[in-house]
C-alpha cells in the first residue's frame, strides 16, 4: 500500500474553487481497502480483497475508453488496490461517445470526463490510445493488436467498445439517393469524429427534413437543425458543422415514429429543450394518442405526456402574432416505405413515403406494437436522417476465440452482471451456459445501445462488482492465465499486460498515444479553441483529424483538417 502511495503522481484535475488538484478518488483508491468496507451488500468486503489478493497484481485489459470502460475501471480500481488496468482505444483520444456522441450544446453532460481524468491519474492505470484490438487500424498511423494476444497477457478482459454501427431501414432508395444520412454519422460529423469528417450533409436542397426514429439521438439531430447557429457557435461543435448549419435552408423538421407518444424512446429533457427553443414552434400532436386521464400514469410518462399535450394545445389555441421562422413536429404512427427521388434530379431525395400504422393492443400500452395499414402519406424531405438505433458488432476474432455474440440483440452474450456467457461442457458431459473465464463486458455492448450516461454508469458498476466479486472468491478457474492446480493450489502464469502484448504484436511505441500525449492534445484544443489558431493566424477548417510527426517520436496533434 505504502509503495503505491509513494508512486502517486499528482492528479491533473484542478478544482476551480480551491485551486487544489483533485486527488480525491485517487486517495479513495489507495485507502479504501484499509479504512472501511464500502462494498455493496452482495459483494465481499474490501478488507477481504486486500488481504487475500494483495500480493499479486490483477491485470485487467479494458477495450474501449468511453463511459462504460472508465466507470468499470473506476469501480474495479477503487475496490482492489492491486488492480492494474490497461485501457485500449482505437482512436488517439479517449472518452468515446462522451466526446463524439454527446451534443455540443450539452457541455454539462461531458463533466463526467473529470472523473475519468481522476481515474487516469492513478499509477495503476495505462491508456493505450491509437491501438485497436482485433481490427484493422483506422488510419495509417494507428496500430492494432490481436485479441488473442490480449487474452494471453491479462487475467481479465472487459469489452466496453460500444456500438459502432447503426441499424438500417432496408427500404428502396435508402442506399442510392443523396440526402439520406445516418444520424449516427451526422452526430459523428458535427462532433469531429474523423471517420465522418467527410459526410458533408447537404442541407440546402429544400426546407423540410425528416428524422426517422424517435429517440434522443433523433431529438439531438432535430435540435442541431433548428437551433440558432449563434448558440451553437459558443459550443465545441466543429467548424465544418457550423458552416454547413449556417447555410442550412431547413425550416421544418418532422420527427417520425412508427408508434405513439406513449411508446416513444425520447426522454423529457430533450423534448423540453426543443419546446424551449426561441423562434421555433411545435406543431400540435394528435391528442387521441395521449391518455385522457394522465393522473393514472406513472410519473415519468405522465410528465412527458403533460408537456406534449400542453404544447400541442398552446400552439393551436394561441396563434403566435410573430410566427416562428422554424418549426418541428412529432409525427406518430408512420413507418417509412420508400424514399422518392426528385423529378428534376433523379439522384436527389425529394420526399419520403410513409405507411400509416395502428397500435395494438391500445395506443396507451407502452409495449404496444405497430401494425401497418394500407394508407400512405408522403412528406416532402430534401434531407432524411435515419435514427433508429445503434448496433454493436462482434470483434473479428470472436468466432475463433469462441466468444458468443448475440447478433439479434447486438450484444455479447452475458449473464446480465457482465460476465461473458457461453455454452460449455460441464464435468458430467452435458452442455450448459457458464462464465467464459476472465471475460466481461459493460455498457452498450453488454445491454444494447440505450440509456444515458447514468445508466451506463450503473451498468458498468455492476460489471465492476462482478469482476471484484470473482477475484475475491478466486478459486483458480475464474480468470485467464490462472488455473487451479488441485488441492487448492493455484498455478499462475506470469502475465505482463501491455508490455507483453506490445512485444508480441511488435507495436511501434511511437505510434501509441499515452495519457500524457492525450493531455497534450487536450491542452492544445483548449488553448486554441475550436478553431485552429497559431500565432495570431486562424484557419478555415472542416473535419478534425490527428496529425503526428516528428522523426523520432510520434507526436500527436489534434487539429481541424484544413481544406
Amino acid at each position, binding site marked *: 500500500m505504502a509503495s503505491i502511495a509513494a508512486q502517486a503522481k499528482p492528479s491533473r484535475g484542478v478544482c476551480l474553487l480551491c485551486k487544489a488538484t483533485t486527488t480525491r478518488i485517487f486517495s479513495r483508491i489507495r485507502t479504501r481497502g484499509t479504512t472501511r468496507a464500502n462494498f455493496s451488500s452482495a459483494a465481499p468486503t474490501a478488507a477481504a480483497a486486500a488481504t487475500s489478493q494483495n500480493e499479486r497484481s490483477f491485470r485487467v485489459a479494458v477495450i474501449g475508453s468511453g463511459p462504460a470502460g472508465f466507470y468499470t475501471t473506476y469501480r474495479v480500481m477503487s475496490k482492489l488496490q492491486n488492480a492494474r488496468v490497461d485501457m485500449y482505444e482505437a482512436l488517439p483520444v479517449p472518452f468515446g461517445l462522451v466526446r463524439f456522441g454527446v451534443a455540443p450544446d450539452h457541455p454539462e453532460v461531458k463533466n463526467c470526463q473529470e472523473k475519468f481524468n481522476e481515474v487516469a491519474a492513478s499509477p495503476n492505470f495505462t491508456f493505450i490510445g491509437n491501438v485497436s484490438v482485433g481490427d484493422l487500424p483506422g488510419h495509417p498511423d494507428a496500430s492494432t493488436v490481436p485479441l488473442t494476444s490480449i487474452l494471453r497477457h491479462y487475467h481479465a478482459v472487459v469489452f466496453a467498445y460500444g456500438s459502432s454501427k447503426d441499424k438500417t431501414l432496408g427500404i428502396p432508395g435508402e442506399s442510392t439517393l443523396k440526402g439520406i444520412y445516418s444520424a449516427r454519422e451526422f452526430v459523428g460529423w458535427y462532433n469531429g469524429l474523423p471517420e465522418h469528417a467527410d459526410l458533408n450533409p447537404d442541407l440546402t436542397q429544400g426546407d423540410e427534413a425528416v428524422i426517422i426514429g424517435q429517440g434522443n439521438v433523433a431529438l439531438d439531430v432535430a435540435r442541431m437543425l433548428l437551433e440558432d447557429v449563434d448558440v451553437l457557435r459558443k459550443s465545441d461543435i466543429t467548424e465544418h458543422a457550423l458552416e454547413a448549419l449556417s447555410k442550412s435552408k431547413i425550416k421544418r423538421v418532422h420527427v417520425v415514429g412508427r408508434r405513439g407518444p406513449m411508446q416513444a424512446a425520447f426522454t423529457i429533457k430533450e423534448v423540453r429543450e426543443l419546446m424551449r427553443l426561441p423562434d421555433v414552434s411545435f406543431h400540435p400532436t394528435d391528442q387521441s394518442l395521449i391518455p385522457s386521464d394522465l393522473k393514472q400514469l406513472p410519473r415519468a410518462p405522465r410528465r412527458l405526456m403533460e408537456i406534449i399535450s400542453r404544447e400541442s394545445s398552446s400552439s393551436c389555441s394561441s396563434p403566435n402574432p410573430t410566427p416562428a421562422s422554424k418549426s418541428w413536429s412529432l409525427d406518430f404512427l408512420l413507418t417509412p416505405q420508400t424514399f422518392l427521388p426528385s423529378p428534376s434530379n433523379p439522384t436527389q431525395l425529394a420526399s419520403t413515403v410513409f405507411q400509416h400504422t395502428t397500435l395494438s393492443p391500445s395506443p396507451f400500452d407502452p409495449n404496444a406494437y405497430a401494425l401497418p395499414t394500407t394508407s400512405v402519406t408522403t412528406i416532402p424531405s430534401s434531407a432524411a436522417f435515419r435514427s433508429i438505433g445503434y448496433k454493436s458488432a462482434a470483434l473479428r476474432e470472436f468466432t475463433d476465440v469462441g466468444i458468443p455474440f448475440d447478433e439479434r440483440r447486438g450484444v455479447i452474450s452475458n449473464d446480465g452482471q457482465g460476465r461473458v456467457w457461453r455454452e460449455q461442457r460441464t464435468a458430467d458431459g452435458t452442455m450448459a451456459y457458464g462464465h467464459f473465464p476472465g471475460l466481461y463486458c459493460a455498457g452498450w455492448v453488454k445491454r444494447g445501445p440505450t440509456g444515458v450516461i447514468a445508466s451506463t454508469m450503473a451498468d458498468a458498476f455492476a460489471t465492476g462488482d462482478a469482476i471484484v466479486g470473482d477475484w475475491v472468491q478466486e478459486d483458480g478457474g475464474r480468470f485467464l492465465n490462472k488455473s487451479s492446480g488441485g488441492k487448492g493450489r493455484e498455478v499462475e502464469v506470469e502475465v505482463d499486460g501491455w508490455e507483453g502484448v506490445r512485444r508480441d504484436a511488435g507495436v511501434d511505441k511511437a505510434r501509441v498515444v499515452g495519457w500524457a500525449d492525450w493531455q497534450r492534445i487536450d491542452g*492544445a484544443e483548449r488553448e486554441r479553441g475550436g478553431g485552429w489558431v497559431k500565432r495570431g493566424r486562424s484557419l478555415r477548417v472542416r473535419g478534425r483529424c490527428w496529425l503526428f510527426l516528428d522523426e523520432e517520436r510520434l507526436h500527436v496533434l489534434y487539429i481541424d483538417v484544413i481544406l
Partner: protein
Amino acid sequence: MSAPRVFAQRLPRLRLALDSRQTSGSSLAQYARPRCSGQLTANTPRLAVSAHRSFGLAAQTNNSARWQSLQTSQQPRPFSTSSAMSHGHVDPPKPGEELYVTFITKEGDEHKISVSKGDNLLDIAQAHDLDMEGACGGSCACSTCHVIVTEQDYYDKMPEPDDDENDMLDLAFGLTETSRLGCQVHMTPELNGLKVKLPSMTRNLQSSDFN
C-alpha cells in the same frame, strides 16, 4: 470517404513538426475550464491559460500560398464550455452555526455530518467520501446524485424541484415520491436534522431481463 483514405490523402501535405519545447512545462491551469454553471453563456471568456505551449507550425508544404489563403480573420472559439468540477468542496461550519444532515448508505450505515448553511448534499457527500457520484458535476444534467428524503416533513420544507430537476429524476433508478437530486438541495436552518437515503444505484440486470 473512409478514414484511412482521409488520412492517407491529407497526412503527407499536412505534416506538422512540433516545437520541441512544447513537451515540457505544463501547467495544470490549462486543464481548467471556464466556469459557466453548466449553461452556455454569451461571450464565454477564453480559457485562462497561463502557460501556453506554443505549437510550432512548420508548414512543410510546398504550397505555402495554400496556407496563406486560409488565414482568415475568424476569431477562435473556446473549445469547451463545460463548467468546472468541484470535488465536494465544502467549508466546515462555523462554531454555533452547525446544521446536521444524516446520510444513510446503501448498506444502512448512518453518517451524521455537521455542515454549513448553503452546502448542497452532493458536495457534502463527496467531501465525506460517501458513495455518491455526480457524473455531471452538480449541474442538474444527470440523475446520479439521487437521494431519498426519509421524512415527508423535510421534503415539504424544501423548495419544489424545478422542471429540469424533475426531468432528471424521471430517469433515476428507484424513484420515490420524496426523491431529490443531491446537487439541488441546499442546506438551510429549516432542514437541520434532515435524513436522506442513498438509493441502491445499481440495478443488477438479470439474464431474465433480456428474455
